[in-house]
C-alpha cells in the first residue's frame, strides 16, 4: 500500500490505499464523495464518469495508481464555489434532463467535457458525446436539450437529417 496524491475538484488529496483500488471506491468510500455513482462496475453505463485531467473516464475502470498527480473533477465540483447550480446543472433542471437522477452525475461530467472542448448545440455531436452514458428514464431527449441550452442554443439538426428525409443513412 502506498500513498497517492492528486486533486479532486482542485482540492489536493492524499490517500494511502492499494494501488489497484478503483478510483470510484476511493472517491465514494475514502473521500466520502458519493455524488459519483456505480451502475455496472464494468464500464458500460457511464454512471461513474468523472474527468481525469479534463477527459471523461469511467472511474470504475481506473485504478487509483493511474491518477497520481492528476486533476479529478466530480459532480460535487460543478457548481461555482460549491454553491447552487452552475449553468449546465441549471439547464438540466429547467429542461427536465434529470429524472431518477442516478445517471445524472456521470451525464453532467460527460457534458462538461463536451462543453469544455467547445462543443456546439448540434444534436448529433451531443449524442456522440454522451453515447457512453446510459439513461433509462428520459429517452435522452431532454438531456440533449439541456446540453444544447448550456452550449448556447436549442438542439440543432443538419438539413440532411430532417425527419422528412427517411432515405438518409444510419448513424
Amino acid at each position: 500500500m502506498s500513498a497517492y496524491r492528486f486533486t479532486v475538484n482542485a482540492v489536493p488529496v492524499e490517500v494511502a490505499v492499494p494501488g489497484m483500488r478503483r478510483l470510484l471506491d476511493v472517491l465514494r468510500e475514502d473521500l466520502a464523495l458519493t455524488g459519483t455513482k456505480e451502475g455496472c462496475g464494468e464500464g458500460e453505463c457511464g454512471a461513474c464518469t468523472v474527468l481525469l485531467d479534463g477527459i471523461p473516464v469511467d472511474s470504475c475502470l481506473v485504478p487509483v495508481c493511474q491518477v497520481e498527480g492528476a486533476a479529478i473533477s466530480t459532480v460535487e465540483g460543478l457548481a461555482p464555489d460549491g454553491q447552487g447550480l452552475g449553468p449546465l446543472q441549471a439547464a438540466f433542471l429547467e429542461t427536465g434532463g434529470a429524472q431518477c437522477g442516478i445517471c445524472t452525475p456521470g451525464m453532467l461530467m460527460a457534458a462538461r467535457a463536451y462543453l469544455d472542448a467547445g462543443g456546439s448545440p448540434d444534436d448529433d455531436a451531443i449524442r456522440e458525446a454522451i453515447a457512453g452514458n446510459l439513461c433509462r428514464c428520459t429517452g435522452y431527449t431532454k438531456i440533449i436539450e439541456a446540453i444544447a441550452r448550456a452550449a448556447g442554443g436549442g438542439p440543432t439538426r443538419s438539413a440532411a437529417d430532417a425527419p422528412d428525409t427517411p432515405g438518409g443513412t444510419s448513424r
Partner: protein
Amino acid sequence: MPDLTTRSEPPGAIVIDPGTIAPGRARAAAPLRREGPAKLTGAAKYADDLVFPGAWFGATIRSTDAHARLAALDLDPAFDWASVVVVTAADIPGENIVSSIKSDQPILVPLGGEIRHHAEPLLLLAAPDKATLRAARGAVRVRTEPLPPVFDPLASEHVFAAYELLAGDVDAAFAAADLILEGEYRVGHQEQLYIENNAIIAVPSDDGGVTVHGSLQCPYYVHAALKRGLAMDDRQARVVQAETGGGFGGKEEYPSVIALHAALLAGKAGRPVRMIYDRHEDIAATTKRHPAIVRHRTGVTHDGRLVAQDIEVVMDGGAYCTLTPVVLSRGAIHAGGPYRCPNVRIRARATRTNTPPNGAFRGFGAPQTEFAAETHLNRIAEALDLSPLEIRRRNVYVPGDTTPTGQVLRDSVAGQEVLERAAEAGEFERLRGRSAAARAGRAGSGAIPGSPLRTGRDRVASGVGLALAWHGAGFTGSGEVKLASVASLELTADGRIDILVASTEMGQGTKTILPQLVAGALGVPYEAVHIAAQDTAYVPDSGPTVASRTAMVVGGLLIGAARRLREQVEGATGGTFAGTYRDHARTHGALRVDQRFEPYPGVGFDDATYRGDAYPAFGWAACVASVDVDLDTGEVHVRDVVAVDDVGRVIHPILAEGQVEGGTLQAVGYATIEEIKLRDGRYLNDRLATYVIPTALDAPRITAILVEAPFAAAPHGAKGVGELPMDVGAPAVIAAIADATGSWIADLPASPERILAALAGVPAVAPLPPGASEPATAAGPDSAAGPDSAAGPDSAVGPRSSAGPRSAAAAEPGATPGTSPEAGR
C-alpha cells in the same frame, strides 16, 4: 394549462374538451423538479450513499440449478465462521414466505426443500469487510439432487392464473366473416434496467424490530413482507425509502426479498447490514417482464371491420407466482386492442416454469398483448390492401362502445384523437407512400444472393409504422377498492403544510406534482407545500407506486384532503386559507386530514364473473415510427418517433413529456435490441455488457404530443402517464420494419438475426420460445425439434414457419388476394 401554483381557486370541474391539445413543448408556469437540485449536485442520497457506522456487508448464496432438491449446505471447516454471520431458512422467525398474492415463494430454500429456479436464494452471509465476505462465499458448498425442469410455458401444467373473456357469439361470427386471419406472436423477457441496482440496508432496533432503508417503489409491500417473515408488529417493522434511481416495476416486489434477507442478517449480526446488489446479481436474480405467446384468429368484413376475435394468451410466470395473476389480467383485458368488436373470446393463462420469477414492468402485461394485437391488425390491413390508418379509423373505440368485459366507454375516450394527431404529426400517409415507391423500385432491380432485397444502389430501406393502444388507468377491476388507500395532509402547529403519502419518487416527479396539486387546491404557492419522507413510521399507506396510479388516485385523494383542510380553516377564520392558515395553526395547533379512497361513481367490477368496468378510465396512445433497415446487416435504426398520449389532464408538461419520451425509448429497445437468452433456465446475458439498452446514438428523435381528455370522476382529470407509451412503441417499430422490407417480424426483438432470416425467408437462428430454455442436450441452435414440437398443431402459423406469420393468411381458406409476401407491393 392553468397555472396551478398561483391560482387562488381550487381546481373545479374540468372544462377542457376531449382532445384539447397541450403544446408539445414545455410551458413556462410549471415548477422545477422538487428534488432536482439535490440530484444535480450529487447531494441526493441513494441507498448505497447512506453511511451506517459499523455496518457489515451482506451476500446471497444462490442456486446454480433450475430445479433440484437442496440436499446440504456445507460450510468448509477450514474457514473461520466466527468471523461472519450465516443465515439459513432455519433462522427465519416468522413464516418462510415472501408475502405476495400467493404464499409460494420462500425467503430461503430450506434444507430438503425444492429449488425452483436458477439464482434462487439458499443461504445468507454477512461479514465486516468485502474481502472476508468473498472468502466466506467461497467456503460454502451447495449440494443438490437434480429434478426434471420445465422450461416451456406451453408445456407446463402448473397454472398460476387463467381468465376467459367472452362477448357475443364468436363461432357464428367467424362463419359469417369475409376473411379470417391467424397469427402467432412471441415476446421475450425484458429487464427493467434501472441504472441504480437494487439496494437495501437493514438496521436492527432496540425493540427487536428493524428499519430498512432502500431503493424501492412500495414501502408498505416491504412492510407487510417484513412483518410476516420476521414475525414483527406494525411498529417493529419500519421501511424508509432512499432516493431511488429508477424502478419501472422492477422495484415493486423484489425489494421485499432483499429487505427480508438484509433484516435477517442484521438481526443475527446485531448491527446494520448492507445488501447492495451488483449489476450481474441484479439481472441474474430479479424479476423481468413476462414472456408471452399470443395467438390471434380474427374475422373481418371486406371493408375491414372486425367481427370476431379469438385470442389465446400464454404468459411465462417463472418459478413463483409474484404478481403474475394481475399481470395476466391486464394483458388479457387489453389483448384485443382499442377496437370495437362484437364477438370476442380471450383465453389467457400463465404457467410456472423453472426460470427466475417474472414480475412487474411498466405496462404490466399490456405491452405483450398489445404488440400482438397491433401487429395482427396491421397484417389484416395489408391482407385487405387497406391503409393501417384507415383500418384503425374504422374500428377504434368511440364513446358508447362496449369492451369485452361489458364496460361501456362513456367519457374520456380519445382513441380517434390520438390516432389522427399521430398520423398528421408523423406524416404517416406521405412517408408510407414514399416507402411503397422505394419498395417497388427495389423489387425490379434484382436481388443479391443471401440478401434478397439488397441491390447495388440501395442498401438502406426506410419505412414508417403506426400503432394505437389503450391503457387502463390505475388498478384493474376492484383493486383500488380493496386497497382503500389513504393520503393525508397535515397543517403542523408551526404552520407548515405537509403531504403524508407512501407514494415514492423514482424519477417520475411524485415530489413535484403532488405539492403542485395541493398548492392549487389550497391556493398557496407551490413552495409552501412540503412532502414528508416515505417512511412507514410517519406516512399512511397511500398504496403502491405502480399502475400509473399516483397522479390519478393519490393526486385525487390529496385534492380531496386539501379541499377539506381549506374548508376547515376558512370556516374557522373567515379569511382565505392562504392568508390565515399560519396564524390558525399557531393558535389552534396541528390539523390533519386523512382522505380514504372511495369508489368512483358508477364504476364497478365483478371479480367472479370478470364483468364490468375493468378500469375507471383508459388512457390512449398512438405512435408513428420511422426506421432505416440495413439490408446487409439486418440492423434497424429507429430514426424518428412521434408519440401522442392522452393522459387525461397534464399536471406538469415537462415531467409528462419526460414520461412519454422515456417510455417510448424503452419500447424501442423492447422492439429492437433487448433480449434475454436462456440456457438450462439461466439467463446467459446477465451483465450490462451483454444485455444492451439503447444509448443516445440508438435513440430516435422523439416528439411527444400530449392530449387531454379528462377523466371526469377525478377532481383534476388526470389518468396517469407512466405506462401508456410502453404499449405502442414496439408495434409501431415492427410495422415500420415491415413497411421498409415487406417482412413481418412476429417474435420480439427484431434483432439483426431475425430480420436477416425473415428477409431470406428462413427460420430465425435459435428459434426458442421466449422464456423457454434450450436443454443442454439439444442438437444445437439449428435444431427445430424441441421448441417447434412444443408449439404443437399451431406451429404451422408460427413465426418459425418458413414464410413467417404471413403464411398464415395465405394458408387460411377464404383468404383474399394480397396475402402472399409479394402481393400488394
